[in-house]
């Protein structure tokens, strides 16, 4: 068998095997090495997938050689190949960072558990993205969610348990909604394979069942993606989780849910269904816009850096959703570009915050005075990624903002464009506020000096790698844009499967092992 044919399976198998190995090793350092190794391998694999699918090729991998509608298939096109790359790349970079970043935040004897959770989380996230089976996506969603609860609860703060618990409740509700949605879809179409479902929806006996399925899936995914009114779990989770975990999650978890949303809306239900008759624009779009306006204001008032960035994340997710809701090639590609860029930017910001927490033990904005003197490289990193978040030209953030506004105006959505600009103004303010304190304020300590050193190199190097990449993406934006527009084109073509699978070929129910 050709090695390349096995790449989609290896993408999942590698971290899946890595996780129990970590448990067996029972050693923090060794577990870290395994995680790092697996993440790098996954990154390379997803690079191969991106390279293979860039020309519009679709890779379909039949798990256990069971043919598609009954068996589970992995379905890779340019849309999810790029998301796979984002997830595994962020994991690889943040893992490099975690070598020192996690050492203080997580008890030494729990390190191997931490990395097990990490690998399981990555397995789940990659699985959600790669699978072409609706129920399998739910299974992977549960794997990643459970691992995420574990990772959050490992936080040093007492509150991290509460935060994890709240996330557990909300996440479980979300997952149940998704499960219900998938169930209804199965009831309506008799299939769990996404491609098959998309072909069967138009001829489904009961359109109402499909509607209910659609509603449940939408709301479930809104929770998981932290879209505005259902975002409340995110702030606490990001705040109280170990910062390393936050850096990982902010770049991956919500992005994956957004991907799934994209997939269901465009390829499973179809554009006509999702955006035409469904009036989704009356729910999702207002939510997105309210999200990025209100949450930017909220971020402005936060006193803790992590919380500020968490709310800013909700706002940025609002951008992505707004782009998706435009249902135009430009809008969707702006959304996809922002999925990629925001993953880089926000992970970098949280990693910079992690450097601060590593040395200071906290991240109260008002107490960050004198930071530029004591931790110049970290401060510079924060500024660089902050500029990208604002969307200053030559940074990755600008590419997304520019395209998003262009897409809005293309549709004649004035107010939307103006609100995005207003929101980016607020981003200027909340980032500017922190930067001013870091550079120009005196420390609030009694001695007047901040007794900390620069963060260790092992943390700074991955951080700057990420920033360098986001600057490269900002200067040479064509590369990401072309991937994103290929993805948008793929999404807009509608159903995954070109032709309906004949009823007779369909074997029996059940999709899991």
């Amino acid at each position, binding site marked *: 068998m050709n090695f390349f044919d096995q790449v989609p399976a290896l993408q999942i198998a590698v971290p899946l095997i890595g996780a129990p190995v970590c448990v067996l090793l029972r050693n923090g350092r060794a577990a870290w090495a395994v995680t790092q190794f697996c993440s790098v391998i996954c990154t390379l694999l997803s690079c191969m997938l991106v390279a293979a699918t860039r020309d519009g090729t679709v890779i379909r991998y039949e798990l256990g050689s069971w043919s598609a509608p009954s068996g589970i298939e992995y379905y890779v096109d340019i849309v999810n190949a790029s998301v796979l790359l984002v997830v595994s790349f962020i994991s690889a970079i943040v893992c490099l960072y975690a070598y020192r970043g996690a050492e203080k935040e997580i008890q030494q004897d729990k390190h191997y558990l931490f990395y097990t959770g990490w690998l399981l989380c990555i397995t789940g996230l990659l699985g959600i993205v790669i699978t072409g089976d609706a129920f399998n996506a739910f299974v992977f969603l549960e794997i990643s969610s459970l691992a995420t609860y574990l990772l959050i609860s490992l936080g040093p703060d007492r509150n991290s348990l509460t935060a994890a618990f*709240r996330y557990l409740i909300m996440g479980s509700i979300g997952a149940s909604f998704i499960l219900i949605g998938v169930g209804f879809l199965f009831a309506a179409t008799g299939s769990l394979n996404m491609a098959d479902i998309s072909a069967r929806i138009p001829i489904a006996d009961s359109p109402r069942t499909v509607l209910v399925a659609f509603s449940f899936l939408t709301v479930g995914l809104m929770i998981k993606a932290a879209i505005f009114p259902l975002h409340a779990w995110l702030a606490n989770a990001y705040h109280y989780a170990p910062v390393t975990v936050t850096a990982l999650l902010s770049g991956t978890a919500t992005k994956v849910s957004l991907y799934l949303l994209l997939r269901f809306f465009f390829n499973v239900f179809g554009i006509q269904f999702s955006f035409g008759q469904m009036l989704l624009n009356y729910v999702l779009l207002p939510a997105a816009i309210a999200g990025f306006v209100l949450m930017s204001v909220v971020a402005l008032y936060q006193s803790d850096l992590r919380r500020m960035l968490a709310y800013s994340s909700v706002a940025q997710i609002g951008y992505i959703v707004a782009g998706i809701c435009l249902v135009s090639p430009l809008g969707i590609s702006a959304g996809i570009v922002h999925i990629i860029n925001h993953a880089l930017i926000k992970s970098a910001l949280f990693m910079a915050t992690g450097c601060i927490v590593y040395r200071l033990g906290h991240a109260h904005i008002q107490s960050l005075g004198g930071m530029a003197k004591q931790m110049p490289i970290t401060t510079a990193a924060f500024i660089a990624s902050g500029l990208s978040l604002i969307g200053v030209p030559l940074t990755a953030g600008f590419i997304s903002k520019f395209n998003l506004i262009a897409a809005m105006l293309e549709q004649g959505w004035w107010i939307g464009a103006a609100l995005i600009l207003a929101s980016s*103004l607020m981003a200027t303010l909340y980032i500017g506020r922190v930067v001013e304190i870091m550079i120009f304020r005196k420390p609030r300590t009694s001695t007047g000096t901040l007794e900390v050193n620069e963060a260790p190199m092992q943390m700074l190097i991955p951080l700057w790698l990420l920033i360098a990449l986001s600057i490269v993406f900002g200067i040479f934006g064509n590369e990401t844009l072309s991937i994103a527009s290929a993805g948008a084109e793929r999404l807009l073509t509608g159903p995954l499967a070109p032709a309906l699978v004949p009823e007779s070929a369909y074997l029996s129910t059940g999709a899991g092992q």
Partner: protein
Amino acid sequence: MTLAQPAFLFLAAAAGCAFIRNAKLRALLLLAVPCISLLWVALLDSGTHATVQYAGLTLEMMRVDGLSRIFAIIFSIAAGLSALYAWHVRDLMQQIATLAYAGAAIGGVFAGDLLTLFLYWEVTAVASVFLIWARRTHGAFSTGMRYLLIQVLSGVLLLMGLLLHYQDSGSMAFTSMTLGSIGTWCIFIAFGIKCAFPLLHNWLQDSYPAATVTGTVVLSAFTTKMAVYALARGFPGTEILVYIGAVMTLFPIFFAEIENDLRRVLAYSLNNQLGFMVVGVGIGTPLAINGTAAHAFCHILYKALLFMSIGAVLFRTGTSKASELGGLYRTMPKTAIFCLIGAASISAVPLFSGFVSKSLILSAAGKEGYWLIWIALLIASAGVLSHSGIKIPYAAFFAKDCGKRPAEAPRHMLWAMGITASLCVLIGIFPGVLYSLLPNDVPYHPYTFGHILTQLQLLGFALLAFVFVMKTGLHPHEIRAVNVDSDWIYRKFLPKQIKRISPTIGILVSLPGKWLANAVAHSTAQLAKLSEPRGVLARGWSINSMVFILTVVMGLVLIFNFGKV
């Protein structure tokens, strides 16, 4: 190497600065880069130099012609002079910001398309705010925030405008536009904000006195002149600019007259001088555009000189307030002389630089028959003499003795002022050099007998009037006070109203029910309160409320979905 351009040199130096430990070395870099850039600009051939593909668009990164060249030259000179003036500064942040800011301004004038312009537009905004924050006080922080907000607002308006314009016209090129579509209006207002149009001007007077001693000198050169350049490039001959410019020349002189902080007086004066340039752009004839370019050139020099001299006073005495100063000529005579040269230049005394540039604009206005505007400019010229020509040197160096005996400005500051002053005088004596740099080939002779005569009459009798008001005690005394400008609306009035209205709204809507009242009152007026860490939006919601909201959303989704079936 086609991509290389002076702006990149500055930006690269700004980035490199961060890695130089030795502050002296950085100061040297700060000085060397503008010199190289000046040579570079002087040697550039006209035409388009660099085209790149970015975000699916073709960008013209480098367009050299007469208009952009003269602005790039003066920006390089200004960067060099302010670097010399700031030789003592050891603050890394300020040094980086200065380089990035100057580089972005130079890049902006070479921008051949609107997106490139926007790029540099934003960088100037972000880089320059550090020069304000570098004062490191609470006041400077809030001022800097306001400044940043307004600058970035200008940037986003430009972005919106250029996108709309792109959709209307299908072109990103930064050429002459006509007002009409919403896109061009957005661009126009974006330029107008940076150019400190009336009612959009507050950021200027707000921020320049707040910056550091050296920062103000740097700030005075770039942002506004870049906007003037943008107007001259984008909207030459747009008639509304003539009137906007006339208002700009007039109203700041009254504020300047009674302002106590001398650096703010200069900021008002800067605004007034911008008015002359805007009038020139509005007239739009080759002569007028020449006038605008020449006036920008001269103005950068003498305004920098004035800011330098007042900066030196601030540097040595710790204040730039007229009420605290006076009689400093005793110990700072050289600074006083340079200040006087700057004052003479800005007042357009013959043989000084202001004379040879301002008369271009006045002549253009005269030739085109704008008689009302011409009178406004004439009055404004008397006003310039009053606040910049007389008040600045008089209040700082003469007037009554304040008792302070500061040392003379440091040597490098004196050198910077000296060079700037000699440039002012040289341009005044040999205007041909400046005129040869101007974009349009229009012959003009400032030194005609009639012209000198009228100007001397104007200035002489204005001086007489000064003597008159001093003798009669009509001249406003220098007192410690602030004067409210239209920024009062957003710094005082609106915050107060919001505070006042919010309970009223709460009471009004309490009739239908308390819950609703709270919701409305909160959502309308107290968004800020909601967003505070303990506010409703920001605090961790309980699981109950999260689930409640979830139910509501689910209900909405279902209603919307089934409403259509």
